[in-house]
């Protein structure tokens, strides 16, 4: 494979990383074949993983079957590893270093990790789900590479020492005979500075979690000392020679198109370099960022009127009645109507969830350097490899001539503005032939990001005489437009659309075909049904009569994955409704759940959280409550995230001020089972942050609009949960399952929060809140509506 020459394009920080591995700039090029093994698309054609760009865009990416693409061991024994899964603030960089040190049996501090650079690291698609997807932990790719390397080194050592492999032991990069420790050889002696030249071995054996000494430990995050000292290079801090600064001018209304731009309106602004127009994309480039901002504000741009937006107060009715739809049966046992007609009691409820935004604290930023038919982009994208391909489309280049280098941005929680601002920087740089940095204004970020999905969810269930659920009927409506961009649909984000590309096509489908395969990736099926399709039952519950019908419709605004996309909205409806059913059955909410669950691990997290919270068994609402003043209550909620990717249960304790409608969460107890735990402190941090993020979204967050445009454009019009807010005490119970497979945990706690709060409010007051956010006005209205 051809080594990749990268030195000219590296930032000073990248040099520091490389130099710490013991490679000078000069050596870097000379020795890159040996130590830094470049990556090309040709390397994807392997016997292990499928080739092709479509495959490469999958969450798990195509990776590489070549060991040398993942691991290099230097002459000094230091290990350099390459990963396509990026640190997004979730602790993945440190967790991956733990994994490498563990599997290779080398000290943690002798491992260097290079992450997410399309010229250097294997294509691993998208890093999504904040510690929430097993592939993020490189359960197969990087871990398999480490295991392959370790076994290869043991075999070499066996030949060199004349000792069978099973009589060798490894410690700190040194292999020695168990019986005679004087017979030893180091990794450096065996391979240092040379390539392995072998493929990954799918049969290479990973260490059992019971043997772990580095993984499974609360190793502190490696970036934190540099971040607190103000030395860390975020994407916002990337500076390259001759760099200019850009700002964009977005349309004033949804659907507005460009009529004209008067360049002369900014001619007198010092430092102005160029006004850039490409179809409906408008931007300015200046020498200084302040000049660029002033020019963007002053530039005279004429737009058509917007296409108009439906009134927000009628939005959920609009959503429910919108045509055309794309209909999907996730489950259909075809006996639901019959079971409902024979039920002793039918219970119905409708839940509403608003559009919400990622609302990263730092607006999105990127640096583009496009000239001579080549592009280098510094981006905080979750998806360097897909972005490389879609930027090629946007710029009219071939993907081989585009390089995307990841730098950490402001916490993203999904597709915030990182991809769209990468297009902004690329387009502006292409127009001026010099590097351009763009950081969006707060308004440009908030008004046009890919929002989390709004939802309308109808639930219906039949109960028998004893209160047991006999059938569950779920029907939902959710709007979508765009999402993560690919090479054929850069219009999935606003900049791509403005520059003339379409979002992924919406394909209506009515009626929904019969389900052929059950996958609960969006948690559209409740935990309490059997999930039977074609004779296979992969649900976690006991209810056999089940219907789950979803309708996708075209969205007013761009949408995309926002932490626990659709899983959170569906779980809010399922776990709230389960509580309503328990109340109708006059059963304790924990007992009632356990009565309808089959999955032993889901049962265990529910039992664990109830025990830790000192849950008092009784039906909700509590008896003897008063109608005024402060009322206290507790609620429970649980999920198997994505149907197979992390168990979580939460008990929330709240106080409700019945005079004002103010909800205060006082305590959140969370039980998590995500298989063997890589880093328990990192896991707790994710659970705690997820729970509070969930609280903020439950109580406060909602995108608002008028008849033309989004009006949630800053933190006063989209109020968040500030640091000074009274936050609940959070307790986490970690169930470490060394024999289980790795699962996610970054999005489990947030998924159960809204329902746990709603159920606690009901327990405290008898008022049921079925619409997010639980604003004071909405809660007060529900309290006043109590009979």
């Amino acid at each position, binding site marked *: 494979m051809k080594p990749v020459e990268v030195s000219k394009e590296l930032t000073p920080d990248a040099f520091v990383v490389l130099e710490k591995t013991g490679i000078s700039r000069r050596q870097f090029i000379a020795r890159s074949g040996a130590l830094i093994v470049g990556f090309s698309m040709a390397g994807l054609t392997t016997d292990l993983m499928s080739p092709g760009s479509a495959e490469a865009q999958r969450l798990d990416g195509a990776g590489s079957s070549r060991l040398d693409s993942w691991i290099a061991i230097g002459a000094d024994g230091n290990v350099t590893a390459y990963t396509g899964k990026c640190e997004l603030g979730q602790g993945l960089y440190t967790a991956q270093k733990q994994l490498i040190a563990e599997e290779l049996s080398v000290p943690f501090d002798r491992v260097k990790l290079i992450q997410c650079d399309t010229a250097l690291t294997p294509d691993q698609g998208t890093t999504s789900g904040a510690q929430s997807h097993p592939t993020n932990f490189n359960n197969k790719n990087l871990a398999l590479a480490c295991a392959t390397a370790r076994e290869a080194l043991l075999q070499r050592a066996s030949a060199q020492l004349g000792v069978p492999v099973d009589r060798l032991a490894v410690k700190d990069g040194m292999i020695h005979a168990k019986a005679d420790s004087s017979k030893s050889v180091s990794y450096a002696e065996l391979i240092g500075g040379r390539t392995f030249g072998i493929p990954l071995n799918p049969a290479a054996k990973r260490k059992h979690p019971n043997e772990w000494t580095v993984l499974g430990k609360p190793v*502190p995050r490696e970036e934190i*000392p540099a*971040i607190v*000292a103000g030395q860390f290079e975020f994407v916002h801090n990337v500076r390259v020679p001759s760099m200019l600064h850009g700002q964009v001018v977005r349309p004033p209304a949804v659907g507005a198109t460009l009529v004209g731009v008067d360049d002369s309106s900014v001619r007198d602004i010092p430092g102005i370099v160029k006004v850039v127009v490409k179809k409906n994309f408008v931007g300015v480039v200046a020498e200084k960022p302040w000049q660029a901002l002033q020019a963007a504000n002053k530039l005279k741009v004429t737009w058509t009127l917007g296409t108009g937006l439906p009134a927000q107060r009628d939005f959920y009715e609009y959503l429910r009645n919108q045509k055309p739809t794309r209909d999907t049966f996730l489950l259909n046992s075809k006996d639901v109507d019959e079971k409902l007609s024979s039920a002793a009691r039918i219970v119905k409820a409708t839940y509403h969830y608003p559009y919400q935004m990622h609302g990263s604290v730092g*607006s999105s930023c990127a640096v583009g350097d496009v000239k001579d038919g080549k592009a280098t982009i510094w981006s905080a994208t979750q998806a360097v490899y897909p972005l490389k391909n879609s930027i090629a489309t946007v710029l009219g280049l071939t993907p081989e001539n585009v390089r995307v280098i990841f730098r950490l941005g402001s916490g993203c929680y999904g597709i915030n503005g990182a991809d769209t601002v990468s297009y902004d920087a690329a387009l502006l740089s292409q127009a001026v032939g010099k590097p351009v940095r763009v950081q969006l204004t*707060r308004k440009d970020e908030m008004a046009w990001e890919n929002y989390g999905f709004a939802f309308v969810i109808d639930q219906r269930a039949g109960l028998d005489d004893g209160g047991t659920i006999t059938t569950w009927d779920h029907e939902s409506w959710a709007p979508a437009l765009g999402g993560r961009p690919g090479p054929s649909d850069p219009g999935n984000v606003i900049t791509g659309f403005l520059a003339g590309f379409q979002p992924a096509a919406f394909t209506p489908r009515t009626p929904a075909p019969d389900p052929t395969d059950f996958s609960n990736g969006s948690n559209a099926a409740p935990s309490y049904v059997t999930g039977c399709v074609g004779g296979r039952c992969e649900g976690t519950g006991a209810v056999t009569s089940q219907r789950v019908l979803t309708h996708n419709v075209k969205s007013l605004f761009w949408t995309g994955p926002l932490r626990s996309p659709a899983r959170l909205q569906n779980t809010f409806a399922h776990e709230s409704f389960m509580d309503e059913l328990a109340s109708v059955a006059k059963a304790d909410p924990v007992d009632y759940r356990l009565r309808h669950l089959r999955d032993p691990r889901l049962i265990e997290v529910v039992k664990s959280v109830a025990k830790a919270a000192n849950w008092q068994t009784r039906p909700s609402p509590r008896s003897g409550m008063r109608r005024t003043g402060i009322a206290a209550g507790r609620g429970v909620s649980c999920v198997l995230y994505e149907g197979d990717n992390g168990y979580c249960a939460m008990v929330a304790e709240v106080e409700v001020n019945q005079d004002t409608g103010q909800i205060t969460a006082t305590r959140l107890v969370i039980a998590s089972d995500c298989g063997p735990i890589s880093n328990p402190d990192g896991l707790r941090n994710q659970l705690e942050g997820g729970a509070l993020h969930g609280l903020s979204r439950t109580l406060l967050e909602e995108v608002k609009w008028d008849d033309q445009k989004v009006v949630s454009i800053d933190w006063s019009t989209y109020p968040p949960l500030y*640091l*000074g807010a009274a936050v609940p005490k959070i307790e986490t119970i970690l169930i470490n399952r060394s024999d289980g497979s790795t699962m996610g945990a970054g999005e489990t706690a947030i998924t159960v929060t809204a329902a746990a709060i709603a159920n606690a409010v009901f327990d405290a007051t008898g008022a049921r809140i079925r619409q997010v956010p639980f604003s004071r006005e909405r809660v007060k209205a529900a309290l006043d509506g109590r009979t």
Partner: protein
Amino acid sequence: MSVMNLRVNGQRHSVDVDPATPLLYVLSDDLALRGPKFGCGLGQCGSCTVIVKGQAIRSCITPVAEVAGSEITTLEGLGTIEKPHPIQKAFIDEQAMQCGFCINGVIMTAKAFLDRNPKATDAEIRQAMSGVLCRCHGHGRMIRAIKRYGQEVKA
């Protein structure tokens, strides 16, 4: 454009900029400092906070001309990776962050407040932090780290 003389973290700098330029732009672009960050440009989130005359100010809405001649302290002026300031160390010890973008505003706001109010109660600390935003929602750990530093200031 006019020449401004600034004192940042004990060093003198001369920059030739529009006097209306927000201080943040000068710090992060002209002086290439990485501590203060652009979060909203509206003074609503705290990411850009620096300390001037013992007060935490929002550099994204402070014209550079207003602070010319004053000593300006940024996050990198507190301590280093090797020798972190006690408040920086408290955040390391508590692992009190996720993405870390907001940490400049959190640390600089808390430090300015506690240095002036060493006997502050928990409620007063929360009040002082009520305009600072962390969207990873590391609230619990951050408040713990701030209190840990508060104990040191008191001692």
